[in-house]
C-alpha cells in the first residue's frame, strides 16, 4: 500500500472511530437554557434495574434510577391491620355500635400483633382458625400469580408470600408498564366472553354447561405484533368457533359487542362489525407489545381457573431503589477504564506503535458492542453482560497477541514485514477460527435455551466473540496494513527485531 493511500485511509479510519466514540459516549445539553439534550448511545442503552441508572431510551438524568416496584395483593377476606384500624377509627367517629360490629367481623392474624386481619366466615372461624378451603384457594391463586410472573421473564421479578395469606410482588423498573402488569395479574377467576346490548345485560357467549369449562371453547390466548400493531389473539376450539360464528351472525347489520371478563372484572370489550368465521380472533387497541403480552398471559392463565377463585385487591405499592446500589454502573465504567489503560500499556510497551492497531480494533469492537446493546431489543447492560463483554475482550486481546507474535517470529527469520504478517496470519488463522467458533456456538446455544439474565449474558458473549473474531482476523489486519504503510521503518514500528545470525 502506498504511503499517500495509507495516510488517507488512516485519516478516514481515525475519523470513523472518532465519530463512533462521540456518538457512543458523549452526552451534552444545548440550546436556549440547555433545554435540548444530545444523549449518547451508551446513555440510551437499556440497563439492568439493579445497576441504578435510568433505564430506556427516553431516560434522562433525574428520571427514576433503576430499582423497581412492589405491591401487595390482599385476597378477599384479608385486609391490612392499617386498613382495619383506619376503617375502625372512621366508624367510631360515627357510631360505636357499627365499630363494634365491624370489629367483631375480623380476627387479627397470625397473632395479637399481626400485620393482617382475617374476615370471619370468609377466611377463618370465630376462633381465628383459618378455613381449609380458603387456604386451598389461596394456594391455587398463588400458583396462578407465580405462573403469570414467570411468563413475564423479567429478570428480578419476585413473588413472595407475607404472613401466609398476602402476596407481595416485585417488578424491576425495566418495563414500559409495570403498573399494568402488577394490576392485571391481580385479577382472578375464570375467563369468560360475554355478549349483549350492554355490559349489564351481557351473557356468556358460549353457554358453557356445568360439565364444561371455558377451555372447551378457547384453546389458548397469545399475543403478537405485526407491522407495528400489537394484538391479543384468542384461539378457539371447533365448538368455540361455531359459537362465535353464531353470536356474530348479525354483526354486519348491527354491531355486536363482546365483553372479555376475568371473574367479575371486565378487562376489555370488542365491537364486531362482521361475522366471525375464523378459528381465532385478533384484538387490537392501544396495546404495546408488552401490554398485549400481559393481557394474553392474564387470559391464558385464566382458562383453567375456577369460577369461585379468590379475588384480590392491590394495595401498598412502593418504589424500591436499585439492588446493587445507585453507583454500580459508574463503578463498572471505572473498572473498564482501569482495564483498558492496563491493556493499552501492555500493547504499547511490547509492540510500540503497533499498539495503535490493537487500539483501533479494540475501540471498534467496543463501539460495535455498544451499538448492538442499544439496537437489540432484549439486550441490556448488566453485571452479567458486562462480564461477558470483558471475557470476549480478553479473547480479542489474546487473538491479537497471537497474530502479532506469529508475525514477530516470521520477521525474526528475515522475511519482509508484508510476508511476515501474511505468513503469521496464515499460521494462526485456523487456531483462532476454531477458538472463536467453538465459544460462539456455546454462547449462542446457551442464549437460545436459557432465559432472563443468563440468556442476555450468553447472547452478549456470543456476539462479542463474533466481533472478536472479525476484529482480530479482518479489522486488525486491515489496520496493520494501513498503519504500516505510513512508515518506512516497519520493524521499529512494530518493535520487531531480526534474529541475529553469527558469522561463520
Amino acid at each position, binding site marked *: 500500500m502506498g504511503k499517500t493511500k495509507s495516510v488517507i485511509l488512516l485519516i478516514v479510519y481515525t475519523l470513523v472511530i472518532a465519530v463512533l466514540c462521540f456518538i457512543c459516549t458523549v452526552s451534552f445539553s444545548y440550546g436556549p437554557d440547555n433545554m435540548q439534550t444530545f444523549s449518547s448511545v451508551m446513555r440510551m442503552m437499556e440497563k439492568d434495574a439493579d445497576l441504578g441508572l435510568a433505564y430506556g431510551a427516553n431516560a434522562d438524568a433525574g428520571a427514576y434510577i433503576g430499582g423497581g416496584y412492589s405491591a401487595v395483593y390482599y385476597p378477599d377476606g384479608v385486609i391490612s391491620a392499617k386498613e382495619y384500624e383506619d376503617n375502625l377509627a372512621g366508624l367510631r367517629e360515627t357510631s360505636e355500635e357499627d365499630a363494634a360490629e365491624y370489629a367483631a367481623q375480623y380476627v387479627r392474624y397470625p397473632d395479637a400483633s399481626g400485620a393482617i386481619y382475617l374476615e370471619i366466615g370468609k377466611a377463618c372461624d370465630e376462633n381465628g382458625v383459618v378455613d381449609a378451603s380458603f387456604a386451598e384457594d389461596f394456594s391455587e391463586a398463588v400458583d396462578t400469580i407465580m405462573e403469570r410472573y414467570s411468563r413475564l421473564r423479567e429478570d428480578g421479578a419476585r413473588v413472595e408470600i407475607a404472613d401466609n395469606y398476602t402476596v407481595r410482588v416485585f417488578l424491576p423498573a425495566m418495563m414500559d408498564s409495570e403498573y399494568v402488569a402488577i394490576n392485571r395479574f391481580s385479577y382472578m377467576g375464570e375467563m369468560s366472553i360475554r355478549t349483549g346490548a350492554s355490559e349489564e345485560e351481557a351473557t356468556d357467549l358460549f353457554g358453557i354447561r356445568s360439565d364444561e369449562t371455558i377451555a372447551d371453547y378457547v384453546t389458548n390466548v397469545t399475543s403478537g405484533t405485526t407491522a407495528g400493531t400489537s394484538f391479543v389473539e384468542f384461539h378457539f376450539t371447533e365448538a368455540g368457533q361455531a359459537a362465535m360464528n353464531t353470536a356474530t351472525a348479525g354483526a354486519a347489520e348491527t354491531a355486536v359487542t363482546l365483553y372479555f371478563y376475568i371473574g367479575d372484572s371486565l378487562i376489555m370489550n370488542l365491537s364486531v362489525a362482521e361475522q366471525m368465521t375464523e378459528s381465532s380472533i385478533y384484538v387490537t387497541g392501544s396495546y404495546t407489545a408488552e401490554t398485549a403480552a400481559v393481557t394474553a398471559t392474564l387470559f391464558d392463565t385464566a382458562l383453567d381457573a375456577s369460577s369461585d377463585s379468590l379475588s384480590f385487591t392491590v394495595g401498598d405499592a412502593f418504589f424500591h431503589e436499585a439492588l446493587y446500589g445507585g453507583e454500580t454502573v459508574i463503578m*463498572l465504567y471505572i473498572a473498564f477504564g482501569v482495564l483498558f489503560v492496563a491493556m493499552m500499556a501492555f500493547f504499547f510497551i511490547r509492540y510500540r506503535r503497533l499498539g495503535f492497531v490493537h487500539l483501533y480494533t479494540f475501540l471498534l469492537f467496543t463501539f460495535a458492542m455498544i451499538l448492538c446493546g442499544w439496537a437489540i431489543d432484549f439486550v441490556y447492560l448488566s453485571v452479567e453482560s458486562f462480564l461477558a463483554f470483558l471475557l470476549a475482550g480478553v479473547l480479542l486481546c489474546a487473538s491479537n497477541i497471537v497474530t502479532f507474535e506469529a508475525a514477530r517470529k516470521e520477521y525474526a527469520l528475515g522475511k519482509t514485514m508484508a510476508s511476515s504478517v501474511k505468513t503469521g496470519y496464515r499460521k494462526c488463522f485456523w487456531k483462532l477460527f476454531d477458538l472463536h467458533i467453538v465459544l460462539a456456538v456455546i454462547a449462542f446455544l446457551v442464549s437460545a*435455551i436459557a432465559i432472563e439474565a443468563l440468556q442476555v449474558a450468553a447472547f452478549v458473549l456470543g456476539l462479542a466473540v463474533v466481533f472478536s473474531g472479525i476484529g482480530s482476523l479482518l479489522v486488525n489486519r486491515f489496520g496493520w496494513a494501513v498503519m504500516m504503510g505510513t512508515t518506512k521503518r516497519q520493524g521499529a514500528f512494530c518493535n520487531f527485531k531480526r534474529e541475529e545470525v553469527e558469522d561463520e
Partner: protein
Amino acid sequence: MSKKKLLPIWAAVSAVLIIAGIVLMAVLGFNTSLDRPEYKTFDVYYNVVVDLNEESKAALEAHCEEAFASAQVSYTDKVTLSGQSAPVSLTGTAFSETGNDFLLRYTFSAETDDAALASAKSALESAIDGDETFAMPAETYVSYAGVSLQPMNEAIWRGAVGIVVAVIVALIYVAIRFGVGSALTGLIACVNDAFLVLAILAIARIPVYAFAPMLYAAIAAVVSVAFWLIRCMKLRDSAKDPANSALSAEEAVDRACRATDKTVLIAALVMAVLLIVCTACTFTTGAMLIFAEALLCVLVPLYFSMLLAPALHGKVKGAFDRLKAKRTRYTGKKKSVKAESDN
C-alpha cells in the same frame, strides 16, 4: 511425582467434591441468602403531609433503633421506600409516586423471634405516642411480617439444559476438528469444571444470587473449553511434526501440555486480574460478590487444565490410538514418516 501418577488423587478429589456438592445441592440447595428466600420485615409507614419533617424522620429512625435495642434484635437491612398512588386503574400505564407516603422497612433474618418483634413494635408505638414532635401519631403505622420467596425455577433448569446442549454441540465440532478423544476429554473437563464450581458454592455455602450458579457454571464451561482448545491445537500441530511421530500417546500429550502450560497460565492470570480489578472497583456495591465469585470459574478450569487434563488425555488418546490401530487392516508408513524418507 508425575502428573500421571497423581491422576487418581486429583480425580478422587474432584469426585468427592462433586458428589458432596450434588448431595448438598439436592438437600440444602445453594446459599441464596442474597436473594432473601425467607426473612421478616418490620415496617414503619409514615405520611409526610402530616408533619414528618427531616428532623422527625431522624427521630423516627432513632426510636426504631431504641426499640430494637430494647427488644434485643438486630436488622440486616434498612431501606426507605417511597409510596405510589394505589394502582387501581387499568388505564394507567406507569406508577407515580405520591411524594407523601413512605415506608421505613427493616429486614430481619427469618429466625428472629416474633415475640421480640412484637415487643419492639409496642416499644416503638409507645415512643411515637410519647414524642410530642409527632403531632398526629395515627399517621405512622408499625407492623411486621414473615415473608417467603416463591422460587421461579424455570430460569435454573433452562440454564442447565442450555449449558449441556451447548457444550455437547461445541464438542461435536471439537471431535470433527481434533478427534473424538479430544472431544471426550473436553467433555469431561466441562462437566468437571461446571459441577465443581457448583459443588464448591454449595459446600462452602458461599452466598449467591439465585441466578448466579448457572451463570458461573456457564462461564466455567466456556473457560474450560477455551483452555482445552489451546491444548488441542498444540497437540494437532505436534502430530504434524515428523519428529514427534515416534512418541507414545502419553508422551505426545505430555509434551504438548508442557508447551502450552505457560499460555494457559497467562490466560488464567489475565482473567483473574480482570475479575480482581472489577471486584475492587465495585467493592462498595452489591455487584462485588458476582465478580469475586466468578474467580472460581477461572480457578477451577485452571486446576483441571493443569493437573487433570494432561494425565487424563494421555490415557484417552492412548486408548483411541490403540483402537484406531486395531481397526486399521494395513498399517503403512505414516504420511509424515513417508515424507521424511522421500526427502
